[in-house]
C-alpha cells in the first residue's frame, strides 16, 4: 500500500522540526536565568497541535536570546575593550595619514590614489582573513567543548579579531609606507639642505661622511648681497608706483593692494639678495627643465626649476658675471616688475662690501609654494661668489636622504655646527619660508635668527609625535592585557565548570 503525500502535512512536520531546531539553537545561546525560561517556553510546545503554531511559539525564544545578549552587553567593562581596540586602530590610521600628509604634501595626492587602490585589494583580503580567524577560533572552542557564553559571543570575538588585525595591518602598513616614501624621496630631488660658513665646513663634511647610505650630495657656494641698482637705476625707481583706482563714480568696487612702496622694493631686492653658484667650468650646471632653448633637462640630474625665458648657464659662463634670476616674484611680492635679459644688476657683498655688476642672461620660473631645493635666487658661476666673499663663501649642501637620516644628521649638526642652517625640503611650509631669498633675509645674522624658531618647532613636533606614538602603544598594551586576562578568566571558568 502506498502512502499518500500530503503537502500540508509535510509542511506541518517541517514547521514542527524547525520549531524544535530553533529552540535547540536558542538554548545553545542562552544560559542562567534566560536558559531556565527558555526551557519553560519549550515545555509548552506540545500543547500546540499544528507545526505552524509550534514554530510561532518557538520563535518567542529568540526574544529571550536577545534579552540575554543585551543583559551581557550592559555593565561589562571588558566588553568595551574590543571597541577600544578599533577606536585606537582608527586613531592610529588618522595619525599616520596626517603625519604623512604633513611631511610629504607633494606626495599626498599620489598616496591617496595608491591608498584607494590598496583599500580595494585590502578589504576583500581582510574579510577573508577575519572569516578564517573566526572559523579557527570557533573550531578551537568547539574542540574544547566550550559552552560558556563569554567565549561564544561572536561579536566580541569578531571585534577583537578585526581590531587586532587592523592594528597589525596599520602598523605594518605605516612602517612599509614610511620606508617606501623614504626610498622614493632618496631617488628624487634633494630632501634636505645644509648651509654652513667656511669655518663650519669641515665639521659639516665630517658629519656627512659619517652618514651611511646617502643617495646623493651636491655642494654649492652661496652668499648674501645687497642689491643696489638695476641698469644704474635705484630699486625705488625700478619699482612701479603704487597702483591707483579710478574715481569711485567709475569703479566703486575697485580695491588696490595694500603694499607700500618699501614693501615692493623689498620684494625686488629679494630677487637678488641670495646667490647660489655652480662650478660651471667642471660641468656643474643648474638643473632646469622645460627650457625653451630646446636643450631640455640636464640629463641624469634632478630638475629643480623651470626656465621660460633667455638661456641657461653653460660652461662658457665660467669666470663671468652672467647670471640667471627668477622671472617671477615669490608670493607676488614685486608686482609690475619683470627682469629683462641683458639687465645689469649691481650688488654689494654683505661680507666684504665688494660691489660687482651681474648680467642677466636667462630667467627661470619658481612656482609659488613649491619646495624648490635652491639655496639662492640668483644662479651664477662660483667665481661670482668667490669674488664677493673674498674667497670665504658659505657652502650649501643639497642632500637626498631619508627622513631618518635627516633627523640623525640634523641632530649631529646642531651639536657640532650650531650656526649651520638646516633645511627640510619635504616640509612645504618650512622650505618655502627658509630658503634664502624667499623672505626678507638681508644679512647672514637675520638668516640664522629666522631659522631658529624652525629648529625649535621641529624638535617640539618630534617630541609630540613620539609622545603620541608612545601613548598609543601603551594603550594597545593595556587593552591587549585586558583581553588576555579576560580570556584567561573565561578559560579558568570553563575548566572549573562541571562536565567539561
Amino acid at each position, binding site marked *: 500500500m502506498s502512502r499518500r503525500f500530503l503537502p500540508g502535512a509535510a509542511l506541518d512536520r517541517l514547521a514542527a522540526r524547525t520549531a524544535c531546531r530553533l529552540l535547540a539553537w536558542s538554548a545553545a545561546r542562552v544560559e542562567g*536565568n*534566560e536558559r531556565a*525560561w527558555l*526551557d*519553560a*517556553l*519549550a*515545555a*509548552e510546545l*506540545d*500543547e*500546540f497541535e499544528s507545526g505552524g503554531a509550534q514554530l*510561532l*511559539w*518557538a*520563535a*518567542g*525564544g*529568540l*526574544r*529571550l536570546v536577545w*534579552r540575554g545578549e543585551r543583559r551581557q552587553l550592559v555593565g561589562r567593562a571588558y566588553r568595551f575593550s574590543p571597541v577600544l581596540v578599533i577606536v585606537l586602530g582608527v586613531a592610529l590610521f588618522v595619525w599616520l595619514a596626517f603625519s604623512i600628509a604633513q611631511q610629504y604634501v607633494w606626495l599626498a595626492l599620489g598616496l591617496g590614489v595608491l591608498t584607494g587602490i590598496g583599500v580595494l585589494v585590502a578589504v576583500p583580503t581582510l574579510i577573508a582573513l577575519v572569516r578564517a580567524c573566526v572559523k579557527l577560533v570557533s573550531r578551537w572552542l568547539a574542540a574544547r567543548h566550550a559552552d560558556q557564553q563569554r567565549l561564544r559571543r561572536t561579536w566580541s570575538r569578531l571585534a577583537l579579531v578585526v581590531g587586532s588585525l587592523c592594528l597589525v595591518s596599520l602598523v605594518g602598513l605605516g612602517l612599509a609606507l614610511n620606508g617606501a616614501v623614504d626610498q622614493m624621496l632618496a631617488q628624487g630631488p634633494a630632501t634636505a639642505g645644509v648651509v654652513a660658513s667656511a669655518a663650519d665646513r669641515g665639521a659639516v663634511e665630517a658629519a656627512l661622511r659619517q652618514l651611511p647610505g646617502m643617495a646623493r650630495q651636491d655642494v654649492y657656494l652661496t652668499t648674501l648681497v645687497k642689491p643696489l641698482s638695476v641698469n644704474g637705476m635705484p630699486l625705488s625707481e625700478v619699482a612701479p608706483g603704487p597702483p591707483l583706482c579710478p574715481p569711485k563714480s567709475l569703479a566703486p568696487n575697485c580695491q588696490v593692494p595694500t603694499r607700500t612702496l618699501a614693501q615692493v622694493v623689498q620684494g625686488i631686492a629679494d630677487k637678488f639678495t641670495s646667490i647660489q653658484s655652480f662650478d660651471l667650468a667642471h660641468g656643474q650646471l643648474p638643473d632646469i627643465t622645460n627650457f625653451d632653448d630646446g636643450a631640455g633637462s640636464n640629463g641624469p640630474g634632478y630638475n629643480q626649476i623651470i626656465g621660460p625665458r633667455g638661456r641657461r648657464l653653460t660652461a662658457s659662463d665660467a669666470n663671468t658675471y652672467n647670471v640667471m634670476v627668477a622671472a617671477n616674484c615669490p608670493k607676488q611680492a614685486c608686482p609690475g616688475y619683470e627682469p629683462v635679459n641683458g639687465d645689469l644688476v649691481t650688488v654689494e657683498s654683505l661680507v666684504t662690501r665688494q660691489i660687482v655688476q651681474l648680467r642677466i642672461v636667462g630667467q627661470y620660473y619658481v612656482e609659488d609654494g613649491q619646495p624648490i631645493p635652491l639655496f639662492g635666487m640668483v644662479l651664477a658661476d662660483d667665481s661670482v661668489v668667490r669674488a664677493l666673499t673674498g674667497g670665504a663663501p658659505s657652502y650649501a649642501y643639497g642632500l637626498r636622504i631619508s627622513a631618518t637620516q635627516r633627523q640623525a644628521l640634523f641632530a649631529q649638526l646642531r651639536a657640532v655646527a650650531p650656526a649651520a642652517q638646516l633645511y627640510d625640503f619635504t616640509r612645504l611650509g618650512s622650505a618655502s619660508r627658509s630658503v634664502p631669498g624667499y623672505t626678507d633675509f638681508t644679512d647672514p645674522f637675520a638668516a640664522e635668527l629666522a631659522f631658529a624658531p624652525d629648529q625649535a618647532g621641529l624638535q617640539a613636533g618630534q617630541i609630540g609625535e613620539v609622545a603620541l606614538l608612545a601613548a598609543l602603544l601603551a594603550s594597545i598594551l593595556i587593552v591587549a592585557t585586558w583581553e588576555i586576562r579576560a580570556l584567561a578568566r573565561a578559560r579558568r571558568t570553563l575548566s572549573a565548570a562541571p562536565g567539561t
Partner: protein
Amino acid sequence: MARLPNTSPQTLLVLEALLEAPTAWHYGYALSQRTSLRSGTLYPLLMRLAEQGWLETRWTEPERPGRPPRHTYRLTTEGARSAAAQLANARAERGETAHHSRPGIEGAGA
C-alpha cells in the same frame, strides 16, 4: 518622561489574567491563550514580574508520560496586591469602557 513599571497594556493583560485566580498556578500556554500574547512578549513579561517579586514560579511534574516538566506561575501576596492596585489605577484612567473592550478572560488555567 519615563513610564511607570508594569503599566504597559500587555503587562496589565497578564496581571489581569493572573488575578482571575490569584492562588492558582498558571501555565504559559494558558496565559498566552487568555491574553492573546505571543510567547516572545509573554515570557519576557513573566521573567520581569518574577524578578520583581510579583510572581512565584515552580516546575510541575508532567501530566502525561514522556512529556517534559512544565513551568507554572502565580502572583505572590505582594504581587497580587500591587497588581490589583495597578489595574485599579489603569481602569480609573481609562474607564470601564476600555476594560470591556478588551478580550475577555474566562477563568484561569491549571
